[in-house]
């Protein structure tokens, strides 16, 4: 009771990174609160995934294993989650801010009339005093997120309602297994008791999901192309530099919207958050919604011919110059020195 429950997402029979990242974060929150971390795993034929959840710190894994639950559908997944939360009364519930988590969590929060904060970039435990009533609260979940197009950062709390719910995007939290893992317990959920016919009002007719190929999140070095690269053809320069340096290619929303690069490469608030050890931004203007997704990178190099571009303000190295000249020079220089 009053523990932290993490909703576990699976994809093609594997655990999603975002869920393991949330378990890792939940461990540190649980330590502050002196409670346990638990996991909710829903799917079909999924018991093989349970030991991995123990490795990431789940003391109890609630398992709803049912052939009808092979693929995510809002209503049956919500029914199980709502029922479990009513029974277990977690004080905190965390979901990935994926297409699944962002579909499921609001439905659950509405049914439980509990607060939900989307796309948190940071979670913490702290006290709160209500400005109107003067009432004091101990150990609330601080849900910290950008708002207003990333121009403000808000700290949200849910003083009176439980569970305190939040979603977090993939790649925002770090993923770390326990140093000394210990086995936990399985709690089997009786799905037949919970699910009713109307939970299956939505039918999946066809699924056409590609294998995950591009993974800019895990990259140590990212070459980040912006709208200033100019065209899809010219994006070859970005890929050339990436290939030379053993890097991945990222892109701003403007570049993705213009069709220069694939969606999966988008860095920023509506894309992936990255923190590589080195990021080289080519023709990126530095809009906040983009920089919010990369400004934690260890070293930022900006190449932009506009000296006023905001990207120069967050860069460690600012090159005011034409990327069409600078990139070939970088490649040549690297090749010269690496011999």
């Amino acid at each position: 009771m009053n523990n932290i429950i993490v909703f576990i997402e699976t994809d093609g029979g594997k655990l999603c990174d975002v869920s393991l990242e949330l378990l890792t974060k939940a461990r540190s929150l649980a330590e502050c609160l002196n409670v346990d971390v638990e996991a909710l795993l829903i799917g079909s034929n999924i018991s093989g995934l349970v030991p991995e959840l123990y490795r990431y710190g789940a003391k109890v894994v609630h398992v709803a294993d049912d052939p009808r639950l092979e693929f995510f559908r809002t209503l049956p997944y919500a029914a199980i989650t709502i029922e479990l939360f009513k029974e277990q009364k977690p004080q905190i519930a965390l979901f990935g801010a994926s297409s699944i988590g962002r579909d499921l969590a609001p439905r659950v929060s509405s049914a439980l009339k509990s607060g939900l904060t989307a796309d948190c970039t940071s979670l913490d435990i702290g006290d709160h005093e209500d400005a109107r009533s003067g009432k004091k609260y101990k150990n609330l979940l601080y849900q910290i997120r950008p708002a207003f197009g990333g121009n403000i950062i808000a700290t949200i709390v849910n003083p009176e309602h439980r569970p305190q719910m939040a979603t977090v995007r993939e790649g925002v939290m770090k993923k770390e297994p326990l140093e000394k893992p210990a086995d936990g317990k399985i709690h089997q959920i009786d799905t037949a008791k919970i699910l009713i016919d109307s939970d299956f009002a939505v039918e999946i007719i066809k699924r056409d999901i590609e294998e995950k190929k591009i993974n800019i999140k895990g990259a140590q070095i990212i070459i980040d192309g912006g709208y200033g690269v100019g065209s899809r053809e010219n994006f070859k320069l970005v890929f050339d530099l990436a290939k030379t340096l053993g890097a991945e290619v990222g892109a701003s929303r403007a570049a993705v919207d213009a069709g220069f690069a694939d969606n999966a490469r988008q860095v920023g608030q509506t894309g992936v958050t990255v923190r590589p050890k080195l990021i080289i931004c080519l023709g990126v203007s530095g809009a906040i919604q983009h920089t919010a997704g990369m400004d934690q990178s260890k070293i930022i190099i900006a190449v932009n011919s506009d000296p006023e571009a905001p990207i120069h303000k967050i860069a460690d190295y600012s090159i005011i110059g034409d990327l069409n000249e600078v990139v070939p020079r970088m490649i040549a220089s690297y090749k010269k020195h690496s011999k």
Partner: protein
Amino acid sequence: MSKEFKIVVLAKQVPDTRNVGKDAMTPEGTVNRAALPAIFNPEDMNALEQALRIKDKFPGSKVLILTMGPFRAAEIIREGYFRGADGGVLLTDRRFAGADTLATSFAISQAVKKMNPDIIVSGRQAIDGDTAQVGPQVAEKMNIPQITYAEEITGLSDNRITVRRRLERGVEVVSSTLPCLITVHATAAPCRPRNAKCVLKYKYSRTIHEEQDAANAGKYLLSADEKPYLKIQEWTVDDVGGDENCYGFAGSPTKVKKIENIVFKAKEAKKLTGSDADVDSLISELMANHEIG
């Protein structure tokens, strides 16, 4: 005769946070909100197009815009009229103020229940909050299925709707019973432009408050009695009913503890030119520090 559907489009007027230009930033590096124009939330526009396409296919169907906001949010309903909507309701009341997504969804669900549609469509999320929560929460409060991330409504019959969804790495086609709530993704078809006939017809459509403002300013107005379709309805808490404690600040479980404006801090940056020598010394430095290697 084919079936006629009643479709409610949930739309929101939002500050245009996508175009935070130089003049929208104060010298302190914070946002000057007043400099941001108020627009029809982009994905709600995609949703409106999906609704209008149903009307194209099933003549006699009605598209109604529902929005919640201050008096000036009536602009959203007029914009809907200009593109082919048949009606609209502005939910406006001080008692709605301070609502988080849960209290907002309660107010909207109360209004939608009163409108009693077959299909509800909205954008996936609004650009001022990016939460994507209100759609699913309205569906839950109405106890109807939800289909999020819709890219296209591909089929519709008397009692079932088929939708293609855009997910992170592909697409999924699902079908649902009606009524149902659909949230539409930005990759869906853009909304058709304004229609000149509709603009002419609805240019002077007004809410009661807009009519009073115009009268106070001494402007001549066609009275709504002459042309009743020009009257945009305003609903308050009293019109939609329900437990007052579920509205506004009181009905919001989440509270904002703190707001920080993002301020650009200039780091100690090394300024370089794009010359051979500068680029070469940078690359050498990175290699020496094992940043690349």
